[in-house]
């Protein structure tokens, strides 16, 4: 019997968006001096709100507000007092979780089941985790009297807007820094809701400042002489530009950039779970994940079987309305990103790889791309080397563990990797040979605030999360 799921949309009425938003500077929303831009829902192209574009003067005002708050209030508070604010923020995030999840799915296009079950709970967990560190920094192994850096300028991407905010803001505040954060141009809304949460939590004015805008705003922020620390998550291209901009200054920098992770499936893997892990690895969040398992390396002896199972599983993925609770794959975040995914997929075909997608109906409006698989891919293909940042998986094969490791490491990136085998010794051996910041064994794309995250080579430097994440926001904090 055919079993059709009726639409099960999450209600939009739980989120109350204003028609326009200013900049959050010194604890208040203020008008910017620059223009304004529209943020849209990528699923429908409907305008959600108008947002101010911060110019250099606005960024300067935000950095000054952060400096004032640092000098007068935040650096003078005890760790226990800072923790109280962070705990309060974490609890408000939990209380407003449904609203935040809906806002995130509207603005970003990601399925509500992910914003509801992954993004927002992990955001709250991150604030709880770093709240716990705030009065224990002396015991973090970073010296007996670790001191904050001052003002952090933070620029975050559009793929996990609120979660990346949490990764940046929570450790910075716990360590006693104040921040100026610039959310991505296409996904500013949850950061602006977070500004409201800071007000609700009575966070001292200027401890968190949020300046919206595009590349120029971000550039103004990271180059501002009043910024002591730059933290960036985003593309390798922009990351390199930031590294150049801060070169020769005293600013400390952490960069979390792109990836082209290998997900390695050995012939003794738990096949059904490996197939799930391949799907989670590349189709989670439409593949807009820097640590996505975008290169499947499968042992040749089981490649045919794994691919048959993977295709069958991909045929059950539900693509569509991000607010429908049964949607597995939502909308591509922007027209620009969709164009890039299309371009690289076309290159894949032109280079002779075999392209496959399950039959799926895509909505007429908005930005959509079906889950896609490329087989007959070799290391020489661009789709095996460049980050596509979309729901596109390149499948390569290998014969021996040594070949798997060699191919996995043969990339300018090095953010994450996955290993699938029932053999414990193989997991340990391969994991230690892989040049990647995170190696998942028999799972993929699992995130936890206690675990450090970061990359090798062109995937960036510095670690976020866990005890290691404190080092980026403390003086002399190199672990």
């Amino acid at each position: 019997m055919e079993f059709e799921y009726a639409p099960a949309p999450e209600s939009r009425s739980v989120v109350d968006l204003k028609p326009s938003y200013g900049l959050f500077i010194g604890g208040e929303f203020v008008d910017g001096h620059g223009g304004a831009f529209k943020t849209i829902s990528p699923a429908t192209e409907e305008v959600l709100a108008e947002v101010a574009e911060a110019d250099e003067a606005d960024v300067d005002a935000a950095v000054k507000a952060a400096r004032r708050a640092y000098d007068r209030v935040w650096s003078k508070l005890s760790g226990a007092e800072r923790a109280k604010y962070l705990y309060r923020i974490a609890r408000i995030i939990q209380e407003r979780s449904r609203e935040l999840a809906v806002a995130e799915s509207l603005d970003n296009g990601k399925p509500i089941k992910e914003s509801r079950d992954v993004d927002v709970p992990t955001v709250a967990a991150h604030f709880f985790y770093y709240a716990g560190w705030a009065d224990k920094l002396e015991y973090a192994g970073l010296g007996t009297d670790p001191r904050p850096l001052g003002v952090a300028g933070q620029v975050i991407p559009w793929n996990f807007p609120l979660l990346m905010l949490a990764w940046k803001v929570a450790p910075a505040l716990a360590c006693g820094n104040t921040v100026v954060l610039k959310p991505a141009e296409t996904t500013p809304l949850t950061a602006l809701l977070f500004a409201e949460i800071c007000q609700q939590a009575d966070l001292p004015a200027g401890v968190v400042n949020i300046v919206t805008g595009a590349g120029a705003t971000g550039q103004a922020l990271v180059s501002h002489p009043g910024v002591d620390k730059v933290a960036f998550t985003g593309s390798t291209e922009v990351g390199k530009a930031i590294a150049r901009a801060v070169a020769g200054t005293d600013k400390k920098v952490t960069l979390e950039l792109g990836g082209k992770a290998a997900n390695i499936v050995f012939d003794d893997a738990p096949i059904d779970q490996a197939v799930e892990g391949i799907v989670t690895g590349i189709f989670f969040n439409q593949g807009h994940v820097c640590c996505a398992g975008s290169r499947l390396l499968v042992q040749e002896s089981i490649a045919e079987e794994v691919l048959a199972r993977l295709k069958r599983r991909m045929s059950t993925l539900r693509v569509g309305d991000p607010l429908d609770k049964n949607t597995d794959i939502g909308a591509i975040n922007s027209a620009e990103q969709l164009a890039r995914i299309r371009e690289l997929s076309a290159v894949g075909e032109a280079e002779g790889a075999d392209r496959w997608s399950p039959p799926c109906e895509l909505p007429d409006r908005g930005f959509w791309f079906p889950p896609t698989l490329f087989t007959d891919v070799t290391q020489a293909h661009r789709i095996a080397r460049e980050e596509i940042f979309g729901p596109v998986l390149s499948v390569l094969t290998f014969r021996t563990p040594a070949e798997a490791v060699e191919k996995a490491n043969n990339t300018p990136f090095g953010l994450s990797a996955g290993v699938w085998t029932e053999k414990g010794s193989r997991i340990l051996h391969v994991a230690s040979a892989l040049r990647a910041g995170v190696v998942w064994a028999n799972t993929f794309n699992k995130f936890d605030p206690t675990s450090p995250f970061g990359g090798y080579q062109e995937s960036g430097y510095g670690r976020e999360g866990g005890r290691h994440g404190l080092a980026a926001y403390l003086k002399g904090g190199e672990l």
Partner: protein
Amino acid sequence: MPALTSPGATGDLSDVTASDATLRRFLHGLPGVDQVGAEARAASLGTRSIKTTAKAQAIDLAIRMVDLTTLEGQDTPGKVRALASKAMRPDPTDATCPATAAVCVYPDLVGVAKQQLGDSGVNVAAVAAAVPRGRAPLDIKLADTRDAVAAGADEIDMVIDRGAFLTGRYLQVFEEIVAVRGACERPGGGEPAHLKVIFETGELQTYDNVRRASWLAMLAGAHFIKTSTGKVQPAATLPVTLVMLEAVRDYREATGQMVGVKPAGGIRTTKDAVKYLVMVNEVVGADWLDPDWFRFGASTLLNDLLMQRSKLATGRYSGPDYVTID
């Protein structure tokens, strides 16, 4: 790992049961089940939101899949007659409410159930072969089965010898299933009783064992594989059922034959039942969404399905006083 789903593997399965050694090699060569991954997959399917028309469809399908069960020492002909009436007309106030798939009783009450059900289309299932312990000599198990078949049972639910399975005597377990399947034949000819093989997964403990038991039973000719007797906790769970569904899916790929799946014990609410149906739908597909291929072994589930059914139809909850207690 045996390439179970690759073409050409089909013919090889007959050699698998040639000896204890070949059977063991085959079962231990099946791909492992990662516990964390299997449980995560089951939990994620459990978050599907089934509303309005889909929910109505699921509830009616679930009612049609219920094996309405009573397996108590205190069962009497009166109790079984009442249960059989309920199975035929679960909601006496609503003629559109479908009947359940079967009534499931101990062998001595098969005759009573059969008489009450007549040609209603509701089957009589009997637990036989020394359920729930399964620890009687084979000839007693076979006699138990033959009695139930002779009394008119349409379906036989047997349980494997977990002691033999956990000792690694797989061929013994296999041969017992084959023998009970033989006892399901009707002496005068006619359609043999369908055989459901219970694993008592709560005693097998690991998902690897569940996968091996599934293949063992399918190789031995089971029509259905079933989680539990209902007498051991934990009984049916979503991840155990997931592993069994994957096994029947792979078995069909290898042999072309379909085998049914029956989670039993512990499924009490409509919400639970819907989660199972979602799992069937997304793991093995629409072919299994049929009472011939998927059943719920349950006693209290039916009333919750009926209450939810009337809630959907009328917009309000009727409450437990408006469904029958049998």
